[in-house]
Structure formats: C-alpha cells, structure tokens
C-alpha cells in the first residue's frame, strides 16, 4: 500500500480578516492523482496556494513525506520538490517563451531536459523568442506545465489546467497527466470539468466554503456523477 506523501491537518488560511479555509483535512498518496472539486469560491485555489505558502496567513500542518512545510517560505517549498501551476497560467509577459521555460530552477534530478520538452511541445521551440504572453491560451498552458516538468519536482499542484481550452487540447493535457502518473508523479488537480476529473484521477475531495465535505474514489464518483454534478451546480 502506498504511503501518504502529502498530509494536511487542520489547515486554515486567511486573506486579511477574511478566513478562506476552515480546518482542511486531506491526504495524497505517493503516485496518486487527486482532484479538488467544488463551486467557485469554495477555496480550492486557496488550498493549493496554502500548500505553496503564498497566502498571506495560514495555520495548521502540511507535511510532505513527513517534513513539516507550514513554517517554510514559498521558495523553500519550491525547493522541496513541489511545483505549482496557477489558474491564470502565470506566464510572464516580460520574459520570452524560452526564458519562461528556463526560469524555474532545477530542484531535483530526474526532470525533463529542455530538448525533451521541445520534443513534447514543438510549438514552444518555434516561438522561443516571442514574449510569453503572445502565445495562445492552450500554448501558454503547455508552457506552464512544461517549465515545471523541467525542475525535477515530483509533486505537481495544477489549478484548472483545462479551463477555457479547446477539447483537442484538453485531451492532450489528459494524456500528458496520465503519462506523468505512469512515471510516478503525484498530482493534485483543481478541476471544474467533472468528466475530465472522473476519467483521470484516483480520488476526489469535494470542497465547500473552505472545508472538505466529502471524498470519493474512482468508482464512487462514477456511480454518483449526477449527485456530485448537482452539488457543484453544473
């Protein structure tokens, strides 16, 4: 049985005086794909940001392979092998495509090389000198994923990677994530696209107003799709 790689206990987070997370409990096993499902504003993005340490204030416990992350600065969490892809993709306008790709430093061995990434994403090679934000939405999403694959980080936090993208690109991303799981990556995914999540992930947590209210494994979600969809308001 796989051991828990990420253990989150009683995680609370605040934006100024407003509390966004109220005691989150969840865990992610090594090599799993786990999705966070929920309506807009439920706190899914905040949860990912809290793991990365980029919310103004948080409390509780976040352990990565037993190591406590709650007191660490964001750059130390990045160095610990956790990589984050925000929901706006986070592509820098003041950097070229190639500079965007090479910006995140290598934090562990085993990441993909620049050549391998150009092979996986040929568009990035042809547009290497363009400003990052001159790429299309789908290309920017590919760039955002490519650059964190170079770092060697084995834990990926992806915030709505398929949002606003054409079905063809969504399929490509799904294939890519499935391949990464084969290679042993651990992935936490925030997804509004229920079918995408259901097809890809091992387990799902349902988040409502800053709390984990339910948990489904693959089979359970498959047999409860309509109820879950209703709770998500889709």
């Amino acid at each position, binding site marked *: 049985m796989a051991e828990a790689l990420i253990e989150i206990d009683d995680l609370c987070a605040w934006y100024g005086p407003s509390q966004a997370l109220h005691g989150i409990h969840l865990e992610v096993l090594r090599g799993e794909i786990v999705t966070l499902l929920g309506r807009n504003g439920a706190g899914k993005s905040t949860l990912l940001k809290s793991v*990365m*340490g*980029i919310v103004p204030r948080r409390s509780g416990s976040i352990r990565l392979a037993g190591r406590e992350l709650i007191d660490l*600065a*964001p*750059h*130390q*969490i*990045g*160095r610990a092998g956790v*990589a*984050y892809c*925000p929901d706006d993709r*986070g592509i*820098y*306008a*003041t*950097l070229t495509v190639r*500079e965007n790709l*090479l*910006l*995140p*430093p290598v*934090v562990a061995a085993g990441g993909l090389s620049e050549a391998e990434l150009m092979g996986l994403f040929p568009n990035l090679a042809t547009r290497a000198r363009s400003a990052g934000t001159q790429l299309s939405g789908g290309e920017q999403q590919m760039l955002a994923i490519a650059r*964190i694959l170079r*770092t060697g980080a084995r834990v990926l936090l992806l915030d709505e990677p398929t949002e606003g993208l054409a079905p063809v690109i969504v399929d490509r991303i799904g294939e890519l994530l499935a391949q990464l799981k084969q290679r042993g990556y651990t992935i936490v995914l925030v997804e509004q696209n229920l079918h995408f999540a259901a097809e890809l992930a091992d387990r799902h947590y349902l988040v409502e107003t800053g709390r984990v209210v339910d948990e489904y494994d693959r089979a359970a979600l498959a047999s409860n799709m309509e109820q879950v969809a209703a709770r998500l308001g889709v």
Partner: protein
Amino acid sequence: MIEIFGMPLSVIAGQTMLGLVNGCFYAVLSLGLALIFGLLRIVNFAHGAFFMAGAFGAWMLLRFVGIGYWWSLLLVPLLVGLVGALFERTLLSRLRGLDPIYGLLLTFGLVLVLEGGFRLLFGSSGQPYPVPNALKGTLQLGFMVLPVYRAWVIAAALAACALSWWLIERTPLGAQLRAATEKDALTQSFGINVPRLLTLTYGAGIALAAFTGVLAAPILHVNPSMGSDLVIVVFAIVVIGGMGSMFGSIVTALAIGVIEGWTKVFYSEASSTIIFVLMALVLLLRPRGLFGREGTA
C-alpha cells in the same frame, strides 16, 4: 562665426556638452532609482545620499589611504553597495507589505543620518578632488573645446547603462529579476529566493549611485549636500520617464540634461525650474510617464 538664435555655435555646443554630462549623471542615478522602485516598490530617498557617500568614499580613500581614482571606481561602488545591501537586509526588508509611507520615512531618515554624519566629520564646505592625470587636458573639436574628463564621464556612464541593460535583459539573473518584478509570489514558488534578489537589487542600485558619485567627485565639490541637490531632479526624471521603465529613465535623463543646458543658454532664469514644468505637463497628459507601463502610475 555661426550663430543660432543669436548665440555662437561654440557656446551652444559647449552647453550641450555640459548638459550631456549632467544628463549622464542623471541617467545612471535614475537607472538605479528605477531599478529599486521597479522591484522593491520603494521610493529610495536615500539615493542622493549614497551618491554623496560615493564621492566622499573616493575622497576618503585618496586622503586617508592613498588609493587613487581608478581603484576607487571599482572599490567605492562595491563598499557602498554592500552597505546598501546590509541596510535593505536589516531594516528596509521589514517594511515590505506595509504602507509605502514607511519606506519613505526610513529612507528619508537615512538621508539625515548620512548627511549629518558626513557634515559632522568633514564640515559643510566642499572638498576638492583632483582629476586623474590620465584624464587631464582638453580635446580640440573645431567648433568647441571638450575637456577630456567630461568625455570620459559620458563614456563611463553610457558603459554603466549598457552593462546594466545587458545584465537585466540578457542574463538568467536578469530574467529572475524581471520575473520577480512582474509576479513576486509565483516566482518564489518556483524556488527562487526573491528576498535575496531584493537585497541584491537594492545593493546594485546603491552601487550605481556610488559609482556616479566617484565620477562626479572631480567635477563637483565633494560636500554633504551634493546628493540632495541632485536627487530632486532625478526623481522628476524618473516620474517623467516612467517609474517602471529603466530605458525610459536613461533616455529622459539624457534629454533633460541637454534641455537644461540649452535653457541655461537661452533663458537662464528658467534653467532650474524647466524640469518641474515638464514633470507637471507629463503628469497632466500621461501620468504613467513617457515610457511607463500600465499600472505603474
């Protein structure tokens, strides 16, 4: 004799040259200021004081240690830059995320400490600093006479700007700087130590100010208030050029220097106010500055 608007060409050329030299001082100073504001979002009131510290550093090295101009050009920016980095690391960094007024107050307080300290040690009257032997003399250009030292200042200042541009636009470190300026939190999440980058950048901006001070020492009297005379103009230049744009600051600085020079020739009463008139115009018509990007106004 050729005349333009009633002024001899040699006079105009001479004043243009002097204006260009001033513009070069402004350019390197505003480059440092824009660099610091762009990344740290700090309005560095202490910039002029560090310029003054650079000039005094060169003077003190010569007077007390016997170290001359050329070594000072290298050592003084390094030493003063280190002091700046220490100041950022120990004091300024604590103000991150607070109201900008605190940064203003702290750097303004530092000005009082630095200027007061130097005034206490060396008095208010200017100390002379000799032009190095290799740069003495003048060049005959036909239509005007150009002092060698001033030609050197122009060359050195432009070289400093070019080096800074190259570091920021063409190196991985510069990419990290641009990334941290655009998106602080995300850049940190990649494992980049942004707080250390901020310290480094502040130190670099201060080093640029001190470098300008060494360049200025043989031309201006080395005195405790030489920085505050210049810094107001430099602030106006950064506002006109655009707070986030280093290129804009350099171009504006050179232009302002020349415009100031011409104003001295044709209407000297306005020469100290012309820049503020220009600043007011820019703020009215294009508040983000001539080269500024959106969101930096």
